[in-house]
């Protein structure tokens, strides 16, 4: 669905994106992770044809993003980080406007509003909505023309947990219906819940990529933490040591094990280890 090779973008003397290469398969939820200023929004803007790259190539559905923007844009939806809705217009007027622009079926407005629980609010001016509600309206606006690829830039940034959970549920449903989703985030929990594959972006460069499970295994300490009956601190055992298996088996047979954990890092731990900085 998306193929990116050595993509770069320079603003004056500053590299916003440096030789980024990655791919996103059809039907995948792909997470682009990084702290603020890492180059996530720049990547979305290049892929959506809003800005031109300084170097490299990017293809969406085998179409060059710098040459076939209108064909690509017809097949993609974008949920930007900033709620760029017409604040004086109602939810319905906002969505109706985009239906008219795309010549899309206007009955979808009520369908999607019902789906996100905003049907009763459709006559409310957007300026009076909460951030979570606006985010849902942005999501609907991006879906009206039935795109096959959806870009979301920090879709739940600043949302309360309930609104974020609703957005996550909708995204999972859309993905199950076949939509490819590319999302940027600095929320590791969100990414672990939603994404099939992720890429870590730091200061414009991709420092690691893979499925969350692959990355966790790759950067795991290969240790076991075991808490035994009568002890207050966990024992740390090296998985690759030959005596570890015997010791654990013996403790299990003797019924002495209170808890046992493998030491897999979180995605946030991996990011800190790779970059030396916190993702938040």
């Amino acid at each position: 669905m998306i193929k990116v090779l050595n993509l770069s973008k320079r603003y004056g003397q500053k590299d916003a994106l440096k030789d980024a290469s990655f791919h996103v398969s059809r039907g995948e939820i792909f997470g682009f992770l990084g702290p603020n200023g890492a180059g996530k929004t720049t990547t979305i803007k290049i892929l959506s044809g809003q800005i031109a790259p300084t170097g490299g190539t990017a293809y969406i559905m085998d179409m060059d993003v710098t040459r076939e923007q209108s064909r690509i844009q017809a097949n993609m939806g974008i949920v930007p980080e900033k709620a760029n809705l017409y604040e004086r217009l109602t939810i319905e007027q906002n969505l109706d406007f985009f239906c008219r622009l795309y010549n899309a079926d206007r009955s979808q407005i009520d369908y999607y509003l019902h789906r996100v629980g905003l049907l009763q609010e459709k006559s409310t001016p957007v300026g009076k909505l909460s951030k979570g509600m606006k985010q849902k309206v942005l999501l609907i606006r991006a879906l009206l023309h039935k795109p096959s690829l959806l870009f979301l830039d920090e879709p739940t940034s600043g949302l309360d947990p309930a609104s974020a959970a609703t957005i996550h549920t909708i995204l999972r449903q859309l993905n199950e219906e076949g939509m490819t989703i590319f999302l940027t985030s600095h929320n590791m929990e969100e990414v672990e819940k939603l994404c099939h594959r992720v890429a870590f972006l730091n200061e414009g460069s991709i420092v690691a990529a893979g499925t969350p499970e692959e990355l966790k295994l790759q950067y795991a300490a290969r240790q076991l933490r075991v808490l035994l009956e009568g002890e207050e601190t966990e024992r740390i055992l090296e998985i690759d040591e030959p005596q570890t298996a015997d010791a654990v088996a013996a403790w299990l047979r003797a019924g002495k094990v209170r808890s046992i954990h493998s030491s897999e890092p979180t995605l946030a731990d991996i990011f800190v280890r790779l970059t030396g900085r916190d993702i938040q």
Partner: protein
Amino acid sequence: MSTRRVLAIFLKEAQDIRTNKNILLMYLLPFVIVIIYKNFIPNMPVGFVLSFGLMFLAALVGMYVPAMLIAEEKEKCTLDVLMLSPATPLDIFLGKGLLTFVSIIICTVILIFVAGSSLSGAAPIIVGMALTAVFCINFGMIIGLLAQNQMATGVIGTPLYMIFLLVPLLAQLSDSFITKLALLLPTHHFFNMLRLVLEDGKGLGETINQLAIILASIIVSFILLLVVYKRRGLTQDR
């Protein structure tokens, strides 16, 4: 260019300006001026009152409204999503310009009523206003392209509004440099045309010189708009 998309933008703007206080105030101003001149200044000729109101309508509304419509979309980043939609820059210019144009023509007819003038001789006034409005809308679009936000439209636009509005009015009072400067302005020729029609009872055929100058100004303003658009674009690479 697509008629469907132009009309979609036209409809959106029509819905939006109904609650846009800044823009509604601009539409109100010519009516307030006409009502004050008509009712509170004794012996003021109806033709002069109407000419005055129509000048405000053309120069202020014609330039301010499209400038604000474009600058607000830039400021609130709604232009970004519009540019990602099938709408082309031409659709956007035409949709916004059409809304301003239609509203000016409607306001012209209402102003004629409010000023107490007869609609029977309104055809030349409406033709002159239509042409002057197109010129002013082009200039308003240029201001909108140059301004990064709504506040900047005031900084860039106010000197222009003053030139296009005040110079023709001041030129009526004295024969000086201002008169020579006024000859370069289509709003001056529109004002002269209004006086010919409203005060001297001239018809459309007798104002052909003024109309030709305004028409030529439209071509110049259109070329200027193209040049500014080519240089600045609708959205900047940020």
